[in-house]
C-alpha cells in the first residue's frame, strides 16, 4: 500500500473507533445487580429464593449500631437518626425499638376489634366487661396506672396492648432509654432500603445517605456508626473487587507495555497493535448495547480479561514478521492458523452462551464479537499499516539458543501417558469435596465482617435466614385462610420446642372471613351500653367515661375488612407486604421461623398441607441452583469440546495433527484441575470459567507449535511469539492470583497454572522439528 493510502486507512479506522466510542458512551447503561450473574432459577422454590435474595425484605435490611457514648446520648442519636431517615424516600422502614402503640395509626385503631382474637372465644358481654373493669381498677392502684390511664376510656379491655404484644417480634433486643440496645451497649437500628440488596450502586447511595444523616446530627461527634447487612456487604465487596482489579490492572498494563517494547523494540508497532484490541473491546460493548437492555458491570470486567486472548493475534503477526517481507505477506502465511485459533476460541466461549445465565450470555457475546473483530482487523487492517522495515526476531541470539534448547528436549512418547496417570491419581486421592456448592464461600468479605453481622443479627432477634414456610393459594384470602388453619398446628410445634417461634401472615392480618365473623360477634350500641352499665354497677368509674370505647366498637362493626393493601399504609405494613405477595396467577404467603430445632417435624407439617404448604430451605435451594448451573455449563462444555475436535480436525485436515493439538490442551486442563484439587481447592464456577480461558490460550500454543513449516527461523519466530504470549498471560493472571478476593484469585491462579502447563505440555508433545 502506498504511504498516503496507509494514512487514510489509519485515519478511517481511528474515526470509526471514535464513532463507536461515542455510540457506546451515549448508550451504555451499566447494571450492577449481581443476580444477573447467578444461575437462572428453574423451580418455583429457586424463583422464590432469587426474589428473596434480591428484593426480599431480608436482603434490603441494613443493621445499624451506634456506639461510643453514654446510653442516654446514644438513645438520643438513635431517635434523631431514625427521625431523619423516616423522612427520606430511600428508606421504606426505620425501626429503632421505640415501637409502641402508635404503630397502629389513628384511623386503623377501631380495627383492633377485628384483628384481635380476644372475642373469638368470649363474647363482649356484661360478665366479661365486669371482669375487665375490676382488673382496670386494680391497675389504677398499681404501678402500671400511669401507663394505662390514658388508654382506659377508649380501650378498657386493653385490646391495643394485646395486639402490640401479639405483634412484638418473638425475640427482640433490650430496650433502654426507649430504644434497642445490644449487650455491647450499642444502640441498634434496622433500616429497610427501597433498593434491592444486591444492587451495590443503589445500596451505596442508600448507605451514603445514612452516613450523611448521621454526620448531620448535632451531637454525633465521638460516637461511631457501624453498618452491616447484605446490602452493605455488596457495597464492600464491589468496592474491594473494583479496587483490587484496578491496581492489579494498572500494574499488569505497565508490565505488558514494557514486555512488548522489549520484545519488538518499536513504539510504532506497539501503538498500532493496540488498535485491534481497542476495536475488539468497543465492538464487543456495542454488540452488547444492541442485544441487551443493560450491560452488566461484571461482564465488562471479566470480558476485558478474556479479551486478553485477542492480544495474541497482533503479537503473532509481529513475531512472525520476516526481514524484507511486508506485513501483508507474513499475515497471509499465518492466516489459516490464526483463523483456526480464532474459531476454536469462539467455540469455547460459545459454551458460556449455552449456560443460560444472563451475565454469562453477555460475556459470550462480548468476547466472541471481540475476538472476531480483533482477528479480522489484524488480518485486513493492521497488516496494511505495519511499517515495511522490521527487526526480524529470528536472528536474535538468545532466541536461537532457546529454540535449540527446546528442540533438544527429550520428548519420549511415554510423557503424555505418565502425565495422564499422575493426573488421574491426583484427582482420585485429593481430599475434600470436589465441587464448591456454597455461593457464599466466594464472597470476598473478611471473616470479622461476617461475625459482626451474625452478632448484630442475633442481638436484633432477626429470624432464621435459612428456612421459610411457604403457603400458596389462588388469592390473598386463600393464603390468609390457609395460614389461619396452620396456626394451631404451628402452636403445637412451638410447644414441643420443634421451633422457637413462627410468624405467619395471619398473625398481622386475619382473613376477611374471620374479620367478618368477629364483626358479627360485636354487640350493637344499645346492647353494649346495657352490658357496660350492668358491668359497672357498684364500681367507681364515672358515668360516660367509656363513650369513646362504645364509639370505637360501633365503628368496628361497620368497617370494611382490613386488607393487605390498606394495612400496607401503616408502619407495620412493610412487614405484612413482605409476608404476603402476588405471584403470577396466585398468591404466596411466607412464614418466618426462628430457632429451628426439628426440621423433620416442620417438613411433616408441610406435607400435611396437600402441597399448598412447604418448608423452603434457602441454603439447599441455593446449592441445588449451583448444581443445576454447573451441570448446564458442563454439558455446554462437552458440546463445545466435541465441536472443537471436529473444527480442528477439519481445519488441519488430519486426525493425527488434530491429536497433537488437542491432546496437550486436554491433558494440561485436567492437570490444572488435579493440581488445584491436591492443593485443597474446591472447584467453583469461576474455576470452570478460568479453565476454559486457559484452554483457549493453550489451544493457541499447541496449534502454533504443531505447525511444521520446515523452516528453522520460522520455528524460532513461533517460539518468540508464544513466549511473549505466555509471559504476558502470566503477568496479568499471576497478578490476579495474589488478590485477596476469592473470585479474582480463583481465576488468576487457574489461568496462570493453566498457561504454564499448556506451554510445557505443548512443547513436550509437539512433533519433533526437523533439524536444519
Amino acid at each position, binding site marked *: 500500500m502506498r504511504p498516503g493510502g496507509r494514512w487514510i486507512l489509519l485515519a478511517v479506522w481511528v474515526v470509526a473507533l471514535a464513532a463507536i466510542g461515542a455510540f457506546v458512551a451515549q448508550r451504555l447503561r451499566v447494571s450492577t445487580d449481581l443476580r444477573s450473574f447467578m444461575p437462572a432459577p428453574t423451580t418455583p422454590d429457586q424463583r422464590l429464593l432469587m426474589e428473596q435474595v434480591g428484593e426480599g425484605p431480608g436482603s434490603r435490611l441494613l443493621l445499624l449500631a451506634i456506639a461510643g457514648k453514654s446510653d442516654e446520648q446514644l438513645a438520643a442519636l438513635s431517635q434523631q437518626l431514625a427521625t431523619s431517615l423516616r423522612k427520606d424516600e430511600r428508606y421504606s422502614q426505620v425501626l429503632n425499638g421505640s415501637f409502641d402503640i402508635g404503630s397502629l395509626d389513628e384511623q386503623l385503631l377501631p380495627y383492633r376489634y377485628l384483628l384481635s382474637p380476644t372475642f373469638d372465644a368470649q363474647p363482649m358481654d356484661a360478665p366479661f366487661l365486669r371482669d375487665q373493669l375490676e382488673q382496670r381498677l386494680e391497675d389504677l392502684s398499681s404501678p402500671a396506672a400511669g401507663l394505662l*390511664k390514658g388508654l382506659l376510656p377508649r380501650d378498657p379491655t386493653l385490646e391495643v396492648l394485646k395486639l402490640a404484644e401479639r405483634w412484638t417480634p418473638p425475640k427482640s433486643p433490650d430496650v433502654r432509654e426507649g430504644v434497642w440496645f445490644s449487650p455491647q451497649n450499642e444502640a441498634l437500628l434496622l433500616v429497610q432500603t427501597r433498593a434491592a440488596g444486591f444492587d451495590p450502586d443503589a445500596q451505596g447511595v442508600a448507605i451514603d445517605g445514612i452516613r450523611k444523616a448521621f454526620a448531620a446530627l448535632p451531637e454525633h461527634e465521638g460516637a461511631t456508626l457501624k453498618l452491616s447487612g447484605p446490602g452493605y456487604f455488596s457495597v464492600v465487596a464491589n468496592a474491594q473487587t473494583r479496587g483490587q482489579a484496578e491496581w492489579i490492572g494498572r500494574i499488569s498494563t505497565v508490565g505488558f507495555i514494557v514486555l512488548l517494547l522489549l520484545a519488538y523494540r518499536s513504539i510504532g508497532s506497539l501503538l498500532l497493535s493496540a488498535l485491534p484490541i481497542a476495536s475488539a473491546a468497543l465492538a464487543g460493548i456495542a454488540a452488547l448495547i444492541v442485544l441487551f437492555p443493560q450491560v452488566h458491570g461484571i461482564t465488562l470486567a471479566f470480558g476485558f480479561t478474556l479479551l486478553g486472548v485477542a492480544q495474541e493475534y497482533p503479537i503473532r503477526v509481529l513475531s512472525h514478521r520476516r526481514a524484507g517481507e511486508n506485513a501483508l505477506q507474513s499475515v497471509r502465511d499465518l492466516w489459516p492458523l490464526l483463523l483456526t485459533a480464532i474459531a476454536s476460541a469462539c467455540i469455547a466461549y460459545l459454551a458460556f452462551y449455552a449456560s443460560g445465565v444472563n451475565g454469562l450470555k453477555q460475556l459470550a457475546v462480548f468476547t466472541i464479537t471481540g475476538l472476531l473483530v480483533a482477528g479480522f482487523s489484524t488480518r485486513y487492517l493492521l497488516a496494511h499499516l505495519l511499517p515495511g522495515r522490521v527487526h526480524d526476531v529470528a536472528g536474535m541470539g538468545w532466541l536461537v539458543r532457546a529454540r535449540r534448547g527446546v528442540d533438544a528436549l527429550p520428548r519420549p512418547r511415554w510423557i503424555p501417558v505418565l502425565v495422564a496417570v499422575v493426573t488421574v491419581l491426583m484427582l482420585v486421592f485429593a481430599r475434600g469435596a470436589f465441587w464448591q456448592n456454597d455461593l457464599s464461600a466466594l464472597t470476598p468479605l473478611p471473616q470479622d465482617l461476617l461475625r459482626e453481622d451474625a452478632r448484630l443479627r442475633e442481638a436484633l432477634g432477626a429470624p432464621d435466614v435459612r428456612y421459610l414456610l411457604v403457603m400458596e393459594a389462588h388469592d390473598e384470602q386463600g393464603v390468609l385462610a390457609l395460614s389461619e388453619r396452620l396456626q394451631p398446628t404451628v402452636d403445637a410445634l412451638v410447644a414441643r420446642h420443634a421451633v422457637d417461634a413462627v410468624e405467619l401472615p395471619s398473625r398481622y392480618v386475619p382473613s376477611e372471613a374471620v374479620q367478618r365473623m368477629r364483626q358479627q360477634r360485636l354487640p350493637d350500641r344499645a346492647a353494649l351500653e346495657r352490658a357496660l352499665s350492668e358491668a359497672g354497677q357498684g364500681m367507681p368509674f364515672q358515668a360516660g367515661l367509656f363513650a369513646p370505647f362504645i364509639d370505637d366498637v360501633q365503628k368496628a362493626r361497620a368497617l370494611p375488612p382490613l386488607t393487605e393493601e390498606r394495612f400496607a399504609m401503616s408502619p407495620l405494613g412493610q412487614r405484612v407486604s413482605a409476608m404476603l405477595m402476588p405471584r403470577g396467577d396466585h398468591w404466596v404467603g411466607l412464614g418466618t421461623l426462628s430457632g429451628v430445632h426439628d426440621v423433620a417435624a416442620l417438613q411433616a407439617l408441610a406435607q400435611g398441607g396437600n402441597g399448598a404448604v412447604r418448608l423452603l430451605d434457602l441454603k439447599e435451594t441455593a446449592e441445588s441452583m449451583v448444581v443445576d448451573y454447573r451441570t448446564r455449563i458442563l454439558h455446554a462444555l462437552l458440546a463445545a469440546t466435541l465441536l472443537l475436535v471436529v473444527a480442528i480436525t477439519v481445519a488441519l485436515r488430519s486426525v493425527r495433527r488434530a491429536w497433537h493439538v488437542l491432546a496437550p490442551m486436554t491433558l494440561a486442563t485436567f492437570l490444572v484441575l488435579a493440581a488445584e484439587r491436591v492443593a485443597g481447592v474446591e472447584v467453583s464456577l469461576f474455576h470452570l470459567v478460568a479453565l476454559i480461558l486457559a484452554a483457549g490460550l493453550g489451544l493457541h500454543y499447541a496449534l502454533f507449535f504443531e505447525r511444521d513449516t520446515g523452516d528453522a527461523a520460522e520455528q524460532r519466530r513461533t517460539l518468540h511469539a508464544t513466549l511473549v504470549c505466555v509471559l504476558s498471560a502470566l503477568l496479568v493472571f499471576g497478578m490476579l492470583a495474589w488478590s485477596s478476593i476469592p473470585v479474582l484469585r480463583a481465576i488468576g491462579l487457574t489461568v496462570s497454572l493453566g498457561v504454564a502447563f499448556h506451554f510445557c505440555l505443548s512443547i513436550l508433545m509437539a512433533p519433533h522439528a526437523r533439524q536444519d
Partner: protein
Amino acid sequence: MKMLDQPLVVSGELSWLGGDRLERRVEHPNREVSTIADGEVSQEREGREPRRFSLKRAPQLQILLDSFVAMLGGDATRLEQAFTIQYSGDDARRWTLALTPRDPKLVRTVSRIEIDGAGNEPHCMRMQEADGDLAVDLLGPLAAKMPATPTRDALAALCRGG
C-alpha cells in the same frame, strides 16, 4: 382520680430490696406483688398472667423509685440530682419535703412529691400527678389510720398531724 367517682384504697407493704429495687405487696382488696428491678417493672396478680414493662414507660415509677431509694438509703446527692428540694418544718420533729423533678419530661407527668415526716420517720408521701390526680401513701403506723372513704383534705390533715 379524675376517672373515678371515689378514691381507690389499697393496703400492703412497700419494701426496699437494696439497690434500685423496690417491692410493693398489696394485701387488700386484691393480692398483688409488683417489683421494680433492673429497669423493669413486673406485676403479678393471683390467677393472672404476670405483666412486665420497662421502667422507661412509667415515669411516675421512676420518680417513686428515685425518691424512695434516695431517702431510705440516705443518699442526699442522688435526691439532689433528681429533684429540686424544698424543706419546711415547724421544728425538728415535724417536717415536709417537697420534691420537684428536675427532668422536664418527668415534670409533665408528676408535678411534685411531698413527703411528711417526723424525726427519722417518713409518715406520708403524696404524689401530685400533672393531670390532677393525687396518690397518697400512708406509711408505717399511719397506714392503719386510713379511713374507709378518704378525702383529699382528710388525708392531708392526717399526714401533717400524724
